[in-house]
């Protein structure tokens, strides 16, 4: 339990790492890089433009304020009217002239209280005689206020609205943000594309490896396609070459051995037959010994035949039209099994494009297996799916334990019920041959429980075009 708990986070972490594949990482890296870069560019551009725009406005404010202040100053004297003086300035929208005279505030449109907008510190500086400027926030938006000392009791202020600049800046900010977002997306897209391109040769490696695992030893990578991956493709191809040679060597060795065993076996079989026929002329002990020789020769013969059958599974398929129903019925009949147990799904085409010998061998071995270990076959079903031809053989024996269901398809493995080696045949290769033949036919062999007791052996073969 502790081990299990200890393993779990590791497993999850590994899963997480695997999920964040190379393509994702490249995509994310480029997207983040593009985001950072474009944001930085946007911020810097924004700041430069903003500084430029405001400075420009400040320079204008400075110039206009002084000239307006001079106009107002020139009118100072008896009969001075603040309203007239301010009106004579001809300020348009965006400029608010304000006059402070003898502690009163004068404005053209006094709907807003100027004293609230003009900071006290600025007033103080202007009253002390220093022209001053400050950026402020008014109800109408950001603005610049400029103050000029005219006389001890008169100061001129002008509030320049920055609304237009702000408006422009907002627009620029929007454009820059959109640009940044676009660049980020483009970066991510580029990353995804690069990742995909970079991984494409690996995808072909994976494809080839999958093919090889499925038994296609002729799969090779084309080193011309990806010059950057020449080393990978070369070593990959070398590896497959070696593998193929080795498999071929093993196969040939097994075939040669089985082959070489045939000639002496022929002699043994002949001699055993002679012994068997004359058994009654021998004394008891010699007769028993002769019987043992005969039985063992028979077993030996089956073993060699089976071994050859297994090595033959590696040779090329010899495809033809096979009438499976007839074939199955014939094999049942040959084994004393009622051919009526052979059933095909209604309406299916029972002519399969297949290697007739292999299909026959599969049927024979499944029927024999059912006879030997499963109390006899009770049903043979033939059906086809979209991509597969399926053979099922049911028996009424004890079934196969779940932990043995894979094991029994390996060579020289016998089922629990078959531990006795009393019978002369049954080297333990029958189901291994079935599995190999099925694989060579692009399919597989499996076993499960038959509903109602017994085992159900299923062989799936890849459907071939006619």
């Amino acid at each position, binding site marked *: 339990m502790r081990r299990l708990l200890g393993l779990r986070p590791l497993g999850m972490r590994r899963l997480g790492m695997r999920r964040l594949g190379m393509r994702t990482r490249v995509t994310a890296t480029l997207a983040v890089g593009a985001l950072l870069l474009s944001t930085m560019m946007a911020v810097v551009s924004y700041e430069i433009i903003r500084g430029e725009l405001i400075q420009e406005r400040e320079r204008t404010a400075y110039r206009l304020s002084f000239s307006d202040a001079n106009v107002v100053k020139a009118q100072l004297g008896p009969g001075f009217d603040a309203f007239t003086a301010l009106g004579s300035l001809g300020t348009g929208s965006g400029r608010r002239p304000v006059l402070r005279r003898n502690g009163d505030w004068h404005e053209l449109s006094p709907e807003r209280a100027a004293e609230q907008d003009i900071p006290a510190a600025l007033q103080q500086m202007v009253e002390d005689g220093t022209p001053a400027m400050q950026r402020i926030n008014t109800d109408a938006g950001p603005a610049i206020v400029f103050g000029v000392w005219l006389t001890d009791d008169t100061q001129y202020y002008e509030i320049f609205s920055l609304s237009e600049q702000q408006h422009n800046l907002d627009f620029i900010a929007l454009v820059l943000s959109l640009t940044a977002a676009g660049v980020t997306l483009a970066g991510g897209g580029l990353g995804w594309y690069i990742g995909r391109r970079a991984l494409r040769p690996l995808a072909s490696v994976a494809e080839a490896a999958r093919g090889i695992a499925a038994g296609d030893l002729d799969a090779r990578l084309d080193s011309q396609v990806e010059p950057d991956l020449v080393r990978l493709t070369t070593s990959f191809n070398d590896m497959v070459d070696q593998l193929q040679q080795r498999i071929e060597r093993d196969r040939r060795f097994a075939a040669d051995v089985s*082959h070489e065993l*045939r*000639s*002496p*076996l*022929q*002699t*043994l*079989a*002949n*001699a055993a*037959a*002679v012994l068997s*026929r*004359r058994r009654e002329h021998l004394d008891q002990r010699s007769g028993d010994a002769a019987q043992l020789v005969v039985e063992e020769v028979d077993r030996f*013969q089956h073993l*060699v035949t089976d071994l*050859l059958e297994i090595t*033959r599974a590696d040779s090329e398929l*010899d495809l033809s*039209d*096979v*009438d499976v129903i*007839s074939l199955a019925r*014939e*094999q049942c009949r*040959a084994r004393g099994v009622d051919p009526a147990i052979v059933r095909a799904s209604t309406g299916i085409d029972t*002519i399969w494009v297949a290697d*007739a010998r292999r299909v026959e061998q599969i049927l024979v071995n499944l029927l024999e297996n059912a006879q030997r270990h499963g109390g006899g076959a009770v049903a043979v079903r033939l059906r086809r799916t979209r991509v597969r031809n399926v053979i099922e053989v049911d028996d009424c024996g004890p079934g196969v334990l779940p932990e043995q269901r894979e094991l029994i398809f390996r060579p020289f493995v016998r089922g629990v019920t078959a531990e006795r080696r009393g019978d002369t045949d049954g080297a333990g290769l029958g189901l291994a041959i079935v599995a190999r033949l099925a694989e060579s036919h692009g399919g597989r062999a499996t076993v499960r429980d038959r509903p109602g007791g017994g085992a159900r052996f299923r062989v799936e073969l890849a459907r071939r075009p006619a």
Partner: protein
Amino acid sequence: MGGVLVIEDDDRIRRSLVLALEDEGYTVRGSATAEDGLAAHRSEPADAILVDLMLPGVDGFECVRQLRRDGDATIVVVSARDDTHDIVAALEAGADDYLVKPVAIKELSARLRAVRRRNRGGPATTATTVVVGDLEIRPDAGEVRLRGEPLPLTRTEFLLLCELGQHAGQVLSRAQLLNRVWEYEFGDERLVDVHVGRLRQKIEDDTAAPQRLVTVRGLGYKLVR
């Protein structure tokens, strides 16, 4: 006179075959080379000849070819080679049957008996003359004429054609043919294919596009009525 001739270079296999077949009641002779075997057969023709393929000097295929030229004795190849190529080549050279080593004596004996029955007895069906187009099959006379010309057929080819002729227009499966012509319960269906191929060479104008003896996909063969 008659009996079985075993042409096999492996001394022990030959001796054991002779022993075992004698036990089965055959008169058996053995030859270690194709040359010896051919000479033995010529001086005293055998009913059945067992031939190994891998022989020193003249090989098994050539041996079968020469034996076939000499007559219609039953030729059974017994070889350790089980490639389809070899089997087809041997049958095409003229062998009636092909058995892969190791072969049980009982099996071999059953085959020989079946061949002998076939060679001595003739077709089991009522022998009536069948005329299919310009092909005339006369089981009683043991001859086949194509456009009036007698065709040289081996015993097996003749029986195969008779069987197909008796059921002209009907499809016969390979298993049925194997059962009726060769009298085998079950066996290698390539036997049928090769013999049909040989038969076609003799009765078809174009073996690539058979008009008389056609293949019915997945089912078997049919002699077109």
